[in-house]
């Protein structure tokens, strides 16, 4: 069978007319290959019973046998097993799938689809699998679904073959490629075929041709493959001239991939820096108002962020209990909710404490610090000391794979966009609304504003509420990347002050520039210094910078600042 392994590469360039192949032919071919090994199982039911074994080696044999039968039920069985949803009844060892009903579990025979009624969870044992089996099942499923009607499954199958690279899959894969109509699936299959040839190719020529295709891809997986082969050749004693040449071309290909990956790494670094910067911006932007504009040293700022995160949790729990269909949008609903809850807290704090302390920074600092401790303990008493889980909706999970080696995670993209939107809205409020005008008037010259008929007390309360509300919205975003715990705010309070002071007190643009530049610098330092040192370097840099420019990057100019 292996003698038919002629250079498959040509199929990639001149696809032959699609052939009619059935699953059966492939299975028959595989059956032929695998029939010689392992204990014989009479039929699928018999093989499936092998899964009940306590030994993983025996389970593996049973799994292989199940795939060999090539029954459509094999696919269902293996998929259920891979998802960890295959159970056996304790009484008679039947393999079943289960469905939760009100008084226990409804069980169905996995092979005959016969209903066995409702049982308690204690009557079932789960069929356990380990990593090795998981890999094997993915591989076997890949082989079985290479010709499936669903293109997504075919793509998955091609990628599974690329990962496991079983020698005997060369022929079925080539046939599947010939019949393939979807362009992206065909690309994946070509890649898988090249990988197969690269590893198992009989002559160095076949391998070299495969290398030509592979080196066009530049993901870390290809690098892994090439490095693996290079390591193998390096371990050879007295390699022939031909092999040495081949090793050289692998090296060149690796260098090319390396170069591309290095470029990707820079882009990735900038992205990560921007996302860290956005987190800093979100955390600091509320403080830029309460501290920057009003001059209140608000140590309880972090707790406003924490309250926003807990509001997100509560909104999500409400959604889960009363409107499960809307759960995916609960995060969106949490944004205004967090703004209102944290904003109201802010107004309450301003009216009850801070308004008595204007102009006394030290006392404000102590009072707000005490307040932050009280708020933490308050939340701990209500919600308990353990972290709360705010689940990420589907659209914020996973990564956007731009090319091999460059993947941007959705939750970080989301945070960057969210931070930009919050900044934009805030600028709009400050610049375009009459409240923004009054706010600026009060902070620049309180007496003059008062004599113009502005209720300065009211404006103070609203400004503090706005800053706190924005902090609450930051809490919604942070609930996606950090732990929702009573201590959440403490982690961000120092960073927030750092950003506001560095950017220049009272300047939103300064806050933006400061947050992003600190984020990007941190991420470029981190690979060299580690997370701990990078943070220390940034802190030292800011201290030195403040020595030179005490008013930060963008200092406000004019008479208002002088007093």
């Amino acid at each position, binding site marked *: 069978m292996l003698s038919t392994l002629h250079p498959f590469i040509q199929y990639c360039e001149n696809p032959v007319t699609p052939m009619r192949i059935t699953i059966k032919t492939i299975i028959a071919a595989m059956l032929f290959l695998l029939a010689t090994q392992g204990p014989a199982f009479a039929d699928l039911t018999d093989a499936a019973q092998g899964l009940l074994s306590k030994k993983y080696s025996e389970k593996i044999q049973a799994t292989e046998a199940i795939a060999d039968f090539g029954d459509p039920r094999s696919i269902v069985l293996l998929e259920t097993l891979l998802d960890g949803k295959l159970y056996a009844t304790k009484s008679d060892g039947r393999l079943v799938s289960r469905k939760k009903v009100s008084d226990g579990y409804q069980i169905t025979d996995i092979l005959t689809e016969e209903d066995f009624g409702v049982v308690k969870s204690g009557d079932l044992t789960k069929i356990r699998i380990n*990593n090795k089996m998981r*890999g094997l099942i993915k591989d076997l499923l890949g082989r079985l679904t290479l010709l499936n009607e669903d293109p997504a499954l075919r793509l998955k199958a091609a990628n599974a073959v690329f*990962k496991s690279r079983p020698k005997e899959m060369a022929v079925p894969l080539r046939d599947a490629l010939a019949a393939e109509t979807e362009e992206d699936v065909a690309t994946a299959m070509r890649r898988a075929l090249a990988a197969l040839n690269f590893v198992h190719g009989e002559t160095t020529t076949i391998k070299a041709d495969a290398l030509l295709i592979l080196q066009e891809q530049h993901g870390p*997986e290809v690098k892994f493959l090439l490095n693996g082969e290079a390591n193998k050749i390096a371990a050879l004693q007295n390699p022939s001239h031909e092999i040495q040449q081949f090793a050289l071309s692998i090296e060149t290909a690796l260098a090319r991939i390396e170069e591309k990956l290095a470029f990707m790494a820079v882009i990735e670094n900038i992205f990560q820096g921007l996302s860290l910067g956005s987190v800093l911006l979100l955390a600091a932007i509320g403080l830029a108002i309460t501290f920057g504009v009003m001059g209140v040293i608000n140590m309880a700022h972090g707790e406003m962020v924490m309250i926003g995160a807990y509001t997100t949790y509560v909104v999500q729990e409400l959604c889960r209990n009363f409107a499960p269909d809307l759960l995916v949008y609960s995060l969106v609903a949490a944004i205004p909710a967090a703004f209102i809850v944290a904003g109201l807290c802010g107004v309450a704090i301003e009216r009850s*404490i*801070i308004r008595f302390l204007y102009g006394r920074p030290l006392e404000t600092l102590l009072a707000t610090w005490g307040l932050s401790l009280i708020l933490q*303990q308050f939340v701990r008493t209500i919600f308990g000391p353990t972290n709360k*889980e705010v689940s990420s909706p589907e659209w914020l*999970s996973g990564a956007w794979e731009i090319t091999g080696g460059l993947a941007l995670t959705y*939750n970080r993209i989301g945070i960057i966009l969210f931070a930009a939107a919050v900044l934009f809205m805030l600028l709009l409020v400050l610049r375009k609304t009459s409240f923004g005008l009054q706010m600026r008037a009060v902070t620049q010259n309180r007496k003059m504003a008062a004599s113009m008929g502005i209720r300065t007390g009211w404006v103070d309360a609203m400004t503090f509420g706005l800053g706190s509300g924005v902090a609450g919205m930051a809490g919604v975003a942070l609930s996606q990347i950090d732990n929702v715990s009573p201590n959440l705010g403490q982690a961000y309070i120092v960073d927030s002050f750092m950003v506001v002071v560095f950017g220049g007190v009272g300047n939103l643009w300064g806050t933006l520039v400061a947050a992003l530049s600190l984020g990007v610098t941190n991420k470029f330092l981190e690979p060299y210094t580690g997370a701990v040192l990078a943070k220390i370097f940034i802190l030292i840099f800011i201290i030195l910078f403040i020595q030179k420019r005490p008013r930060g990057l963008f200092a406000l100019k004019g008479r208002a600042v002088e007093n």
Partner: protein
Amino acid sequence: MLGLSKVAGVITGAAMLATSALGLGTAQAADDVIKVGVLHSLSGTMAISETTLKDAVLMMVDDLNKNGGLLGKKVEAVVVDPASDWPLFAEKARELIEVDKVDVVFGCWTSVSRKSVLPVFEELNSMLFYPVQYEGEESSRNVFYTGAAPNQQAIPAVEYLMSEEGGSVERWVLAGTDYVYPRTTNKILEAFLKSKGVAEEDIMINYTPFGHSDWQTIVSDIKKFGSEGKKTAVVSTINGDANVPFYKELGNQGIDAADIPVVAFSVGEEELAGLDTAPLVGHLAAWNYFMSIETEENDAFIKQWKAFIGDDNRVTNDPMEATYIGFKMWTQAVEQAGTTDVDAVRQAMYGQEVKNLTGGTAVMNTNHHLSKPVLIGEIQDDGQIETVWRTDDVVVGDAWSDYIPESAKLIADWTYPYVCGGCEKPMY
């Protein structure tokens, strides 16, 4: 000033409330009760993990009293809150021993808190049961270590990954939180890996601060490190809630357990409870106990715990089992000695046996460490950990690692003729 005094008033009120609630019942007559101190953080960063252990001790005390108490006396728990503040641990320990006159203390989680209370227990000759897996390199006359030593957790886990069944891993990332436990464990692991012929460039070590939340760079570094053509695994000694964003980032960046498995020494059922574990299926954890183990003892324990805490969704974990074993052993030793006197109980502790919740029997050795089985499990999509490998027999806890040259020659044995926690030759 009005505002400030108000705030101060609220703080004082809250503090008074807290003390009165925690000091509960200390005024009772001391003659007919045996006092058990509980020294676990109920607030601050470690509250997440330690609160559970406080409840576990309370449950055991409750159970003991229902069954007639100890030596015919009622047992009473004295709970204090060291608030995740390491120096406060020492103060509270002194308060428990000198003011409350407790007979034994169950407490501490982080190694730094244990190191902080150690001089207090040695000076006042009291007894501490420490229930958490730790870095070893210590054996005090006044502490019984019921958690795993490195040879009962870290070394077997790495050996498993090196084996064919575990995936024949050749390249290692040692990632940890920046404090004494991960640093010492990684030192031992590095020495162990090198003794197995792993090259310097195949080991990557990385430390992050407590509560680290931005894992983007580290996870993409791990990805790059794993693309060099050799099977790679991550050994994680990351502690506390930093694990949640770490695993989230792993899931988001698509690191699959089949490609780069992560084996964790500080992630148990309790930590996974706040996490969507679907993207983590197949990553590993090494412990001496998993909630998923099916034995009669474990079933009973889980049932008792859920009933005590009044919540069917609460999970059990390894440090809880360690607390359970430690408490049982102490009560047995007290009964055997007929007194709660520290020296008498200590002598009675050696060789004390308690059934493990996972099967087999735990034995207290003369180096103050337990013999326990080692389990390796894979994380499941329901937040449970399923055993994939376990030692055939119990493993004797080794206080001094054999892989660090200066500690390999030390022996911990608190019985004649050695009578020391770390010496090369017998004292007598």
